[in-house]
């Protein structure tokens, strides 16, 4: 991870923990919480459902939001850094 990416992760306003929740619930959680951000701000979604790896990018594409970065969590699951663009 570069220093720039680390700074962006640090900028997240809050983390949505959807671990243990199955498809499509992590995406529903993401859609619910993103409007709490101002335009340009970022949040982190934690999910361990295998479908999230494909549905988070697909949702961002469909809703014109930005998946900035992803990283594996040390205790299982993946962190998705998502920026509100619209």
């Amino acid at each position, binding site marked *: 991870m570069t220093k720039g990416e680390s700074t962006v992760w640090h900028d997240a306003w809050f983390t949505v923990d959807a671990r243990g929740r*199955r498809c499509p619930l992590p*995406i529903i959680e993401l859609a619910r919480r993103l409007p709490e951000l101002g335009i340009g701000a970022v949040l982190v979604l934690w999910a361990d459902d295998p479908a999230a790896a494909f549905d988070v990018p697909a949702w961002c594409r469909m809703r014109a939001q930005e998946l900035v970065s992803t990283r594996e969590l040390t205790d299982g699951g993946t962190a998705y850094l998502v920026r509100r663009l619209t």
Partner: protein
Amino acid sequence: MSGRNTVGSVPAYLDHASTAVLHPTARDALLAALDEGWADPARLYRDARRARMLLDASRETVAAVLGARPDEVSFTSSGTQAAQLALLGTARARRRAGTRILLSAVEHSCVLHAAEWHERAGGQVTTVGVDGFGRVDPAAFAPPPDTAVASLQHANHEVATIQPVAAVADVLHAVGVPLHVDAAMSVGRIPVDVQAIGADLLSASAHKFGGPAGVGILVVRTGRRWANPLPADEREGGRVAGFPNVAGIVATAAALHARAGEIADEAPRLAGYVDRLRARLPHLVPDVEILGDPDPAGRLPHLLTFSCLYVDGESLLGELDRAGIAVSSGSSCTSDTLTPSHVLAAMGALTQGNIRVSVGRESDAADVDALLAVLPDAVARVRERAGVVGL
């Protein structure tokens, strides 16, 4: 919906891509061949010779429809077995040329499983990615120098995308690598000619086009190196061991011959059903993503796949089943492994709320109308239960 030509007990059978209904011609041939073709075709008495004759005639029929020579055609116990034998038999015969299998990311699981088997036995596997329609780029299908065999489906089983098989064959043949084409989705649906698509080996499955379950088709073109990866006997030219399913093979040939004669007339009707779904669904269901190639020339005529945002695919299948509508899904919650379809994943498509609709020769407009009538409320109910409002 009662009084129509229902399939089994299903008022609206829209899963012809999982298995087609037994073709009436195949049913007649099957019943006749159970009586006439019961004996061992390897023996020399009268009933055995008659079984042999039925087997040979079936081989000639299938070969003629596929543009192959009869001695290039063998019958297996399934399309899966045909694909396994095609890939692993070529890899075995060409192991001095290389130990790598090259395949697309969207192959049917039977091809992926054969490749995994090859990898566990010490071989290598290289996977070629696809675009958003699930299609490979022929230029990206360049084989590494140690490639023994390549495998590419003729058309995709989940999103109907037709692959540029002939162009890929040209890329492979320029460096002497043979191509196995998994044609399980296309044979009996669109014209398939082994020569025209450049296939060195081809596999297909009888139950996908109106033949009985338990019969696969394996084509190994003349002059291609192939060695049985399993213990062999004298059956099927040494390619498929064990007593052949003569009656099933006769019915397979009857089905394929009948299909070859009717697909040209049928295709516009089926394409019309799919076009109607393609046109109506985005207006009837909010946040639906229609998958696959919008160009009709780039896909099979009888299949449509879409994904619904914020929808649990298993719950949606249940809603449709209660309404008498049979479809399939590539969503993770509908799979035994709880992972989404590798095809949808490779395409970068939405995997939740995924539904595959496939029509066939028994389908009529009322089947499609039933789906269009039920689906919007079914999706709305599933979303409502998940608390999806205003997202």
